[in-house]
């Protein structure tokens, strides 16, 4: 028991995690490239034409995975922020900081692909519907988090302020998720839900899940790449950084 605990906490130290992240990035990159490659092939050549929306529905294969990631990354970011506040671990805040830009990107993509889907199907790029509005608020939360962290010079204070913002903003996640139920929205209800299963065709569902897993692997790879730079920047005055092999060249 105690040995397992020690192993676990070892990776909460920046040098150990820097090394671990460096070894994990290539794996998640390969997984992401393979899954997204297969997912794209299935999106265009395997998944059948929809009987109602024709070829236009294929936007679902990026829209839904991007929207899922936008919410999922926020929850993980808030989780790291909470851990950072409770245990006062520096690495947790760095992970939250590494996730925010990728989360913001997926939120933007969810809104963008949603607009490109809404235009042909609803006749409008944008409507002030509960689902769309709460997703837009999510984008502002990400931007607010990034701006707040960047605006405070003292890193520990920046981490704490960002963590509180991230935790408060978490109330928006169930609002996004249940918005299609709570309000009468133009946005359609969930095609895949935890309680009711899926209302989609099997091939479409599998394609969407493969894309979602690919986006998930992409997010991990990118967040780990970013956290390595953040660790280096924050620990630049330490001995362990100056002794890294990549510092000795040139």
């Amino acid at each position, binding site marked *: 028991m105690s040995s397992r605990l020690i192993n676990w906490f070892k990776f909460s130290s920046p040098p150990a995690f820097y090394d671990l992240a460096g070894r994990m990035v290539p794996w998640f990159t390969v997984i992401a490239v393979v899954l997204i490659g297969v997912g794209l092939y299935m999106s265009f050549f395997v998944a059948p034409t929809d009987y109602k929306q*024709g*070829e*236009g529905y294929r*936007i679902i294969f990026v829209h839904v995975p991007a929207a899922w990631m936008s919410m999922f990354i926020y929850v993980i970011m808030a989780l790291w922020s909470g851990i950072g506040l409770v245990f006062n671990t520096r690495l947790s805040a760095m992970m939250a900081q590494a996730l925010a830009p990728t989360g913001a990107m997926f939120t933007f993509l969810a809104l*963008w*692909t949603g607009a490109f889907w809404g235009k042909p199907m609803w006749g409008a790029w944008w409507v002030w519907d509960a689902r769309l509005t709460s997703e837009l608020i999510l984008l502002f939360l990400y931007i607010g988090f990034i701006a707040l962290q960047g605006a405070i010079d003292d890193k520990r204070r920046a981490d704490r302020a960002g963590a509180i913002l991230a935790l408060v903003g978490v109330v928006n996640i169930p609002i996004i998720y249940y918005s299609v139920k709570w309000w009468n929205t133009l946005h359609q209800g969930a095609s895949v839900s935890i309680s009711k299963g899926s209302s989609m065709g099997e091939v479409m569902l599998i394609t969407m899940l493969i894309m979602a897993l690919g986006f998930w692997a992409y997010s991990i790879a990118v967040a780990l*790449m970013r956290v390595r730079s953040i660790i280096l920047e924050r620990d630049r005055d330490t001995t362990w950084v*100056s002794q890294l092999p*990549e510092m000795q*060249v040139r």
Partner: protein
Amino acid sequence: MGQSAAGDAGKMSAAEFFHMGGYGLYVWGSFGVSALLMVVEPILLRNRRKATLQRISRIVRLNTEVRDES
């Protein structure tokens, strides 16, 4: 029957594929921007890592030179 389905798939031209049954702008506008961002982000991160390594290794080298002289 199976033959004709395969024949139909084979007949789909590139122009038809990009046309997406009239939804070309919307489908490619979605997939295109997503692909662009998901390619650009890792490139930016690679550049950031390079710049960070360069900057910090310069500081490290300066510090060791100062230490050697004194």
